[in-house]
């Protein structure tokens, strides 16, 4: 056996076990849930489970609610994170230094804990309402409302998104920016013609993560969301766990895959391109 053959075999042997695990816990479940979602009550195959998603009134409002919360969260998260990442990259000072050191901590804080903290802070008789009472403001209803879900999403997603973006911004060499300034480009021009083009790919990766993170979330909407309408993550869990309708739950799951498929496809394609460009 030649040396390259031997190395090739070794490579495959090292990779196959983790790939097999991936196959069992991701590929097979997705394929299976697709098949299950096509199974109707009588045992035959048709699209009735999907039809239910659009004909059932509660389900339809769940879908619209999920899309609304997701889009609003995405827009706010991306704007704030990008601003934060740019700020951390191009500013200096003690406060910035402190933020640079600590902004990643929320990524590691358990989701349940952060949500619980927010419930106590923003609830009816929570800490914030006590402070606002001093200046005579009554807090609107945040917990058990879509505002609560959106705020929790901001808390979870901004640090992670800012982390991805600031690693992209760190890759832009100072020399490029300085030479642009030397030839007279203003701040805005530098941003739109250099900084943004050099980081927009990561920006789209970040957008994908936030979008899918929010659509597929459970903890925050389960704990702070309203009873109706529900986010799809919560509704899926109920259909599966409480009503024991596995086929219907599989259909909702597959529907969320479809909602994310464009972004998921883009994410994979841009990663593949990046890697092919290296070689």
């Amino acid at each position, binding site marked *: 056996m030649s040396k*390259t053959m031997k190395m*090739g075999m*070794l*490579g495959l042997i*090292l*990779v196959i*076990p*983790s790939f097999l*695990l*991936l196959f069992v*816990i*991701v*590929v097979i*479940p997705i394929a*299976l*849930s697709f098949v299950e979602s096509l199974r109707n009550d009588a045992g035959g195959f048709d699209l009735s489970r999907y039809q239910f998603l659009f004909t059932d009134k509660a389900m339809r409002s769940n879908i619209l609610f999920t899309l609304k919360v997701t889009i609003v969260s995405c827009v706010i998260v991306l704007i704030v994170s990008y601003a934060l990442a740019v700020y951390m990259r191009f500013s200096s000072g003690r*406060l910035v230094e402190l933020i640079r050191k600590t902004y*990643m901590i929320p990524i*590691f*804080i*358990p*989701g*349940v*804990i952060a949500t*619980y*903290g927010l419930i*106590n*802070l923003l609830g009816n*008789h929570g800490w914030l309402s*006590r402070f606002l009472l001093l200046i005579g403001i009554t807090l609107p209803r945040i917990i058990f409302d879509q505002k609560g879900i959106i705020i929790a999403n*901001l808390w979870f997603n901004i*640090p992670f998104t800012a*982390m991805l973006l600031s*690693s992209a911004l*760190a890759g832009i060499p100072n020399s490029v920016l300085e030479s642009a300034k030397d030839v007279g480009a203003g701040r805005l021009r530098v941003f739109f013609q250099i900084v943004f083009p050099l980081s927009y790919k990561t920006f789209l*990766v970040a957008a994908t993560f936030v979008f*899918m*993170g929010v659509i*597929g*979330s*459970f*903890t925050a909407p*389960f*704990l702070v969301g309203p009873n109706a309408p529900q986010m799809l*993550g919560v509704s*899926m*869990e109920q259909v*599966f*766990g409480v009503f024991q309708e*596995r086929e219907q*739950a*599989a259909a909702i*799951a597959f529907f969320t*895959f479809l*909602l994310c498929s464009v972004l*998921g496809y883009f*994410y*994979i394609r841009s990663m593949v391109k990046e*890697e*092919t460009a290296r070689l």
Partner: protein
Amino acid sequence: MLWYFRAIGTRKIIEFLLLIVFIVFFVSPLLNLVVLAFSGKWTYPDLLPHQWSLQWWKFVLQEDEIAKSIGLSFLIAALVTALSIVLCIPAAYAFARIRFPLSKVFLFSFLLTHAFPKMGLYVSIAVLFYKLGLMNTLLGVVLVHMINVLMFMTWIPTAAFRNVHSAQEESARDVGASPFRVFRSITLPMALPGIIVASVFTFLNSLDEAQGTFLVGIPDYRTMPIVMYSIIADFPGSAGAVFSIILTAPTIILLLAAQRFVSADVMSSGFQLK
């Protein structure tokens, strides 16, 4: 006072205020839990508790279920971390150093774990586990936890191995070190920071995982975050706050220990190829 603000300029003041709002937004929910955990009596609308006390700590630590859940959570997190190190580190080494057929396809296949919304993926897995009889088993819970970590546990070490200059490995070979020796004394130590970050992140991720466990592990596998769900619903606020601190403590300790290695660059190499 006014002349002072004018001197530093409105832009600076606005910038400062925005940063303060930002910091308060992230710190206040956690600070609130700390205050709550040590409060005895705290009635509305007082800003701070009348009485500080440790009564809720006693209460929480005496609950059997809570002690059990802490043990279970650490057991699962340790299993997940060990299993992912055994499976992913060799693969990462292969991706970084060995040319083999279809290596790109294998490398990208890990993207699949993060190309679908999580709860949808968990429900799909639950459908499969139901057929295989893996619902409410330790193996089932461990497998669900593996989904989240598989990608960065492979990619962060891959990036770390790639960053080791092959010139260093070659010069060690030139002076007569065996391939295994080169790996043990050159490659591994230099890639270790990345591996440590990935492992710590894996451990914390598993400790924190609630959604998948809630779907697959109920009713027997009640880890800390699952117990937290019911504490939120059934117990007074202070009990939940105490438990929150217990649940967050390992995170803080591990983060402090690994602080030197954790950076935006290393972390983000787990979610995108650069």
